[in-house]
């Protein structure tokens, strides 16, 4: 069923994406935008996602901006963004308030210790999942930059923006060289 992508419809769609997505909103976004609302094709979705991934900011937030803008200009972007972000911000502030009220209680403190340890594990897994396809497809140009960024930030404690400014040009150059070499081979 397709419904016209008005700002109000965009707000509602992204609100529902935000609230259904625990720990990973993208599958829910695909289902909502492609299958249920029919606002974009599966190819459009992948193409838009690759754009959103190469820009700073959470992918899904960028997605709300792009989808909103294509459907209804800056009003669409604003509506989609507000739908995506409003409720989660309120919820997390409420949780933070609960934490400051009850964070000293022994049971809450222990629950949070466990929660923190598991949440750290999620990030380990996310990093590994992101690294896997890169290391499979182009290990010799990916591995050195993964390692260099990790050592600079984690081991040496250098400020991240400077590390990015220093590494990105070399890494982009390497990716450029790699693509040309691949093409010459085929």
């Amino acid at each position, binding site marked *: 069923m397709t419904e016209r992508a008005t700002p109000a419809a965009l707000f509602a769609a992204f609100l529902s994406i935000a609230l259904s997505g625990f720990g990973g909103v993208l599958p829910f976004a695909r289902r909502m935008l492609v299958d249920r609302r029919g606002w974009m094709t599966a190819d459009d979705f992948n193409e838009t996602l690759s754009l959103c991934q190469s820009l700073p900011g959470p992918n899904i937030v960028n997605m709300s901006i792009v989808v909103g803008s294509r459907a209804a200009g800056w009003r669409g972007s604003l509506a989609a963004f507000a739908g995506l972000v409003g409720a989660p911000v309120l919820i997390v502030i409420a949780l933070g308030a609960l934490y400051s009220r009850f964070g000293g209680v022994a049971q809450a403190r222990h629950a949070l210790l466990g929660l923190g340890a598991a949440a750290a594990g*999620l990030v380990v897994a996310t990093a590994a999942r992101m690294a896997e396809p890169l290391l499979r497809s182009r290990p010799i140009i990916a*591995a050195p930059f993964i390692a260099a960024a990790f050592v600079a930030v984690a081991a040496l404690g250098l400020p991240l923006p400077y590390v990015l400014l220093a590494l990105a040009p070399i890494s982009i150059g390497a990716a450029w060289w790699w693509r040309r070499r691949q093409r010459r081979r085929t």
Partner: protein
Amino acid sequence: MKTSDTLLALALQFAGLSLVAFGGANAVIPEIHRQAVDVHHWMTDREFAALFAIAQAAPGPNFLVSTLVGWKAAGLAGALTATAAMCAPSCLLTYWVAKAWDRYRETEWRAAVGGGLAPVTVGFVFSSAFVLVRAADADWRLALVTAASAGVVFFTKLNPLWCLGAAALLGVTGLL
């Protein structure tokens, strides 16, 4: 520190991070942590780990940790300031770039930029994992929880919320 000074510090810090947060807040956790704990002393290492965990357990995009850092530093005004600063620059950039993007759909440089940023971003996410593991894992039992949750999320399609829930339950029952 006066509240207005804190709000200004939050706005500057997160607005700057917004433009380098490729893949979202997970890539800039080490810098948020350094500023919040080491530079401004808004919270301890342990509190940072707890706030990060709360942000992960809440629904929605992964910038919510910045909302909570702002909240901890300066209350509601801090939360809104940090959230707006974390979102506005990258959203405006996306808005403008999206309009130009279609013109350059199949160009070489676009693919090279994407391909070149990816490994650096992955290195940053590993750094985030390192910072969080160090903050959260005070003893071997907690380290075991981290390893188990990483393994489950990496090797299965189980919703990560099950890991968070199970770990919180282990904590409540006094096993951690």
